[in-house]
């Protein structure tokens, strides 16, 4: 077991308007008591719509955002505690093991640094490599992500989106991490380039044995790259299973609707779409009971009263729903 999060909760306070004497008027329940595990060398996909708390989970795991409550365990150590104590050498050593790839490669690279500077900055921070090896290692990383040696002295603006994402990956790899949280790494890229980056991430996993948390709203890339998938809705995990199991036997009405909403690239295959009415409710005052009940086509009485627990519905397939679809339900 590489990583485990237990009852992770993150609330953001909301204040009334104004500058002085602002009263707190509520909490955004971004993530609410979420638990899951990521195994070594595994890619766990975290799927859901915008605002459901995917990014917040990843940020809390790496303590870029202190969680309101709950713990994160990395190789058996309670890393939330370590980050909280803020012992500099311990924190840096954790940062070397856990890295983050941001969604937007246009905003996450300093425009005034050359690619060589960007990739070597982690060496400067962590001092985990003797200085005479920096240049060689930098070129090695460049080649590893499919860039050329002459790219080293260029600036980020000279690159396309796909190439920038490669630079971000090289920077993350500079400290030899064991775990990388990739936050929508291909969302801002073109389809033809998307495939290149996904293949690169997979290759690196096989070569270096990295564990990924892959955050995405796009189920088709998730199916391709992930071993297990967790589906989120409004700060809660509603379903989590092995990728093939989840795609063949989606049980939660939200998962089924999400899958049916994706247009298939096959003009002959026109399937019935489940159109969810309305929009995701506000996370400031989430609906009572099951948070999905306001839009759910299969809701029953209990759904609005009690919150369904996450239970193992089939072997390795966890589900939080009182009235799931039957297994092998085909939504075509």
């Amino acid at each position, binding site marked *: 077991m590489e990583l485990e999060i237990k009852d992770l909760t993150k609330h953001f306070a909301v204040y009334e308007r104004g500058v002085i004497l602002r009263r707190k008027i509520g909490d955004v329940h971004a993530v609410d008591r979420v638990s899951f595990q990521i195994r070594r060398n595994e890619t766990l996909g975290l799927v859901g719509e915008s605002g459901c708390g995917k990014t917040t989970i990843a940020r809390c795991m790496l303590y870029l955002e202190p969680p309101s409550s709950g713990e994160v365990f990395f190789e058996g150590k309670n890393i939330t505690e370590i980050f909280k104590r803020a012992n500099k050498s311990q924190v840096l050593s954790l940062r070397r093991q856990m890295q983050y790839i941001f969604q937007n490669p246009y905003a996450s690279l300093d425009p005034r640094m050359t690619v060589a500077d960007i990739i070597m900055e982690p060496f400067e921070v962590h001092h985990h490599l003797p200085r005479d090896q920096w240049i060689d290692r930098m070129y090695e990383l460049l080649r590893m992500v499919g860039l050329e040696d002459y790219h080293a002295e260029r600036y980020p603006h000279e690159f396309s989106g796909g190439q920038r994402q490669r630079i971000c990956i090289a920077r993350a790899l500079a400290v030899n991490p064991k775990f990388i949280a990739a936050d929508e790494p291909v969302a801002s890229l073109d389809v033809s380039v998307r495939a290149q980056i996904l293949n690169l991430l997979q290759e690196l996993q096989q070569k270096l044995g990295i564990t990924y948390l892959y955050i995405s709203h796009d189920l088709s890339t998730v199916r391709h790259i992930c071993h297990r998938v967790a589906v989120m809705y409004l700060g809660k995990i509603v379903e989590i299973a092995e990728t093939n199991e989840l795609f063949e036997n989606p049980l939660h009405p939200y998962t089924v609707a999400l899958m049916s909403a*994706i247009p298939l690239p096959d003009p002959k295959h026109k399937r019935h779409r489940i*159109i969810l009415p309305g929009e995701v409710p506000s996370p400031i005052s989430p609906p009572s009971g099951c948070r999905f009940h306001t839009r759910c086509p299969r809701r029953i009485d209990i759904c609005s009263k009690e919150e369904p627990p996450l239970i193992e519905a089939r072997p390795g397939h966890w589900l939080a729903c009182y009235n799931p679809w039957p297994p092998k339900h085909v939504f075509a």
Partner: protein
Amino acid sequence: MSEKLLSVEGLRTYFYTYAGVVKAVDGVTLDVRKGETLGLVGESGSGKSVTAQSIIRVVPTPGKTVEGTIEFEGRNLLKLTESEMQHIRGKEIAYIPQDPTTTLDPVYSVGDQLTEVITRHQPVSKQFARSKAVELLRSVGIADPEIRVNQYPHELSGGTKQRIAIARALSCEPTLILADEPTTALDVTIQAQILELLKELKQKFNVAMVLITHDMGIVADTCDRVTVLYAGQVCETGTTEQVFENPKHPYTEALLSSVPSLALRKDKLSVIPGTVPNLIHPPSGCRFHPRCSYARQICVDKDPELESIGDGRLVHCHRWRELELTSAVAS
């Protein structure tokens, strides 16, 4: 087949920048028939949006349409005066922009923005326009339109804003709608709602649509015919079924196979090597040749003709006769 509503021929729109002339659209030919949906697909920088902007003549500076004809219901739009064009924009050809958050004016209420379009093109009173605005909001599936009509854009979600942009496009009953990636900024479940709405409205108002997208799934789902663009040029045109089942251009084949499939898991996604070319110095000959796995010497030397190959299909490739391309998605 019904008659042509819009036919664009040999359209060239260039951007005169300090770095050089960017040939964003370089010889695009396409046509839209009455009541049909034409998909315009391609990667970013392939000239999809500039083509749409050229049609309604709102190309931003330093861009200029330098050549071509745009025939719309018997008139060449490129020959009209600006004031004649203003009667067409919004009234006969409407535009749904990509990003719903930046296209509505934040200082006007939803109702004001809709009535502005209506009173601009139709001789009706403000009150009548207002009641029509409420009706339009209802027809695009907005709950409580009487309340929404007095709200401001920042009070609304992305999906609702996109519905308002659609309502605004429909307000003068246009014959053609140019929809520029209308669902790209939205979540999948909201995207499904909007796509369904567009299909429904197309039936109800019998309006033709040019749907710009980079998502092959949306094309398969909503479009009757499709034109594939690459680096400012047409690769091929055909009905959605023809293009998806029997692609004739290597770029279409590559594009279809690089889409990760929901139904099928492959070990490795096939990729199109390289990136979209620089359009200041586009590659010689066929613009796709540096990334094409079937390229020959002729592709480097000579730009192929856009050939009509029967069945209403157009192909822009030297080797379409000899190549046997397969479709990664045909079932």
